């Protein structure tokens, strides 16, 4: 098996080099995505400016929720989204077979040979908005709470990467799985608003089978000390455990699909 500490930086370096061959398109991509999210957040802020609160959350709290949502998504998706969106094509064209015979774990190869630096615009906007929001919300920070916040973020990014891996892995068995990304992004859209504004069945769904409430709402509510439906005082602990649990399920699903992979021809 190849030495990962040499192979991974080499894979990332090769991919970044291929992207920076077109610097104009790359920077334009960052700026356009920055503008698109900025515009959406401005629109949400207009609702807050007119009505004051959304589900009991004021604008700086919503801004923290939005920035956490975007940062967690960017970190997780840079490791997974584009890479696993292309799994259908890899299976259909047979290029997955070539990946399977490489002397490196297929997951590691797929993830790091496509590590997406296109999320730089997302990350810059998310960090900027988060810094502003954190300066506005009433939270008493300690070293422990700051560390917890960082752990929540890592856990949330793990959820994103794990779910994307599971969707991509499904293509190994079903051949087609990109329609599942549409469902993911449906819940992703809902995950950037306070969970308590949705009906109870949807709240339960987003805390269990489609656990994207843990991507932003639950950890941010736990940080702000806001009541979390169904979880109550367990919100912080659940936020910490959700990511590793999702990764465990993702690993099991990935291995199951790899074992049952037969190519597009069946």
């Amino acid at each position, binding site marked *: 098996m190849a030495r990962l500490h040499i192979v991974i930086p080499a894979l990332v370096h090769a991919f970044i080099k291929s992207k920076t061959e077109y610097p104009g*398109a790359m920077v*334009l*991509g960052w*700026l*356009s*995505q920055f*503008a*698109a999210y*900025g*515009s*959406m957040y*401005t*629109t949400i802020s*207009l*609702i807050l*400016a*007119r*009505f*004051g*609160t*959304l*589900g009991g959350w004021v604008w700086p709290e919503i801004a923290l929720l939005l920035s956490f949502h975007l940062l967690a998504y960017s970190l997780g998706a840079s490791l997974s989204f584009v890479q696993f969106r292309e799994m259908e094509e890899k299976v259909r064209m047979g290029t997955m077979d070539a990946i399977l015979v490489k002397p490196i774990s297929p997951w590691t190869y797929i993830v790091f040979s496509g590590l997406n630096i296109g999320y730089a615009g997302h990350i810059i906007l998310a960090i900027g908005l988060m810094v502003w929001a954190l300066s506005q919300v009433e939270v008493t920070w300690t070293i422990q709470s700051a560390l917890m916040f960082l752990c929540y973020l890592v856990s949330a990014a793990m959820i994103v990467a794990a779910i994307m891996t599971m969707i991509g892995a499904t293509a190994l068995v079903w051949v*087609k799985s990109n*329609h599942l990304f*549409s*469902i993911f*992004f*449906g*819940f992703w*859209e*809902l995950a950037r*608003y306070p969970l308590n*504004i*949705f*009906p109870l069945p*949807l709240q339960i769904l987003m805390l269990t089978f489609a656990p994207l409430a843990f991507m932003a709402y639950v950890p941010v509510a736990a940080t702000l000390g806001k009541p979390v439906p169904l979880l109550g005082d367990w919100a912080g602990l659940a936020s910490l455990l959700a990511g590793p649990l999702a990764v465990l399920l993702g690993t099991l699903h990935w291995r199951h699909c790899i074992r049952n992979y037969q190519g597009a021809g069946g």
Partner: protein
Amino acid sequence: MKLAAYPAFTATAFQSRLAYRNQVWSGVFGELVFMFARIAIWTSVFSTVASSSVDGVTLPQMITYALLAGPVLYWDYSRLLRDIGTAVKSGDIAVYLLKPLLYPAYMLASHIGNFLFDLLTVTVPVAIIIAFTVGLVPPASLFHGFAFLAFWFLSFAMLFLLTAILGLAAFWLMTADSLDWFFNSIMTLLAGGIVPLWFFPGWLAAIAGNLPFAWVSYYPAAIYIGQLDPAQVLTAFVVGLLWFAVLLGFLLWIWARARHRLIVQGG
């Protein structure tokens, strides 16, 4: 090419979408999620005010506005942008230039087919589900109902023209990938598809209300629920027609320039 031949492109585009039936249910799911998120937001914020209406609009009217301004009027322009971008990037655009047709008119005919397909398979089912589960309101009056239909045509034409102009920029940029995001950022804020202009600060509403993006979502949906009186409707229609003429002229001009600028990679 004779004008009568273009409807064949509309029919072909419609039929070709039938081959991708799994896109229908994922499209319905996506639009339903979009709508239920909007319904949850408006229900939540309307519950914070003491009266049953805000700026003269009730919650059922606001939900109807969200459906019209979103899924009904704001059709999937990305497909058009992507088609033009791909044709330029792959060089297929050269094939269209050899044919006896006007490429923008071909795109219009083709995307009317896509629009009708999405309308019948996605938008109408979503509207029916929303109507039965949450409830929708009828037009404010017969006049507003007919005016909405006229504005719907104008809305489709405006979004087509704006997207086609943007897509043709690919002749200069050699990529349309980022343009989708840029256009989305403008439309999200200025078309009034998510937040209607009457909730904007006055200065921003004044600017957005005079830009062509507002004719895509805001004016048709606002007219349907009766936010504009008949005189305002007629004024908005005249101004909309002026914008339509300006954008049409600009599209034809930019197409004439683009044809002479065509560079196909490797040739």
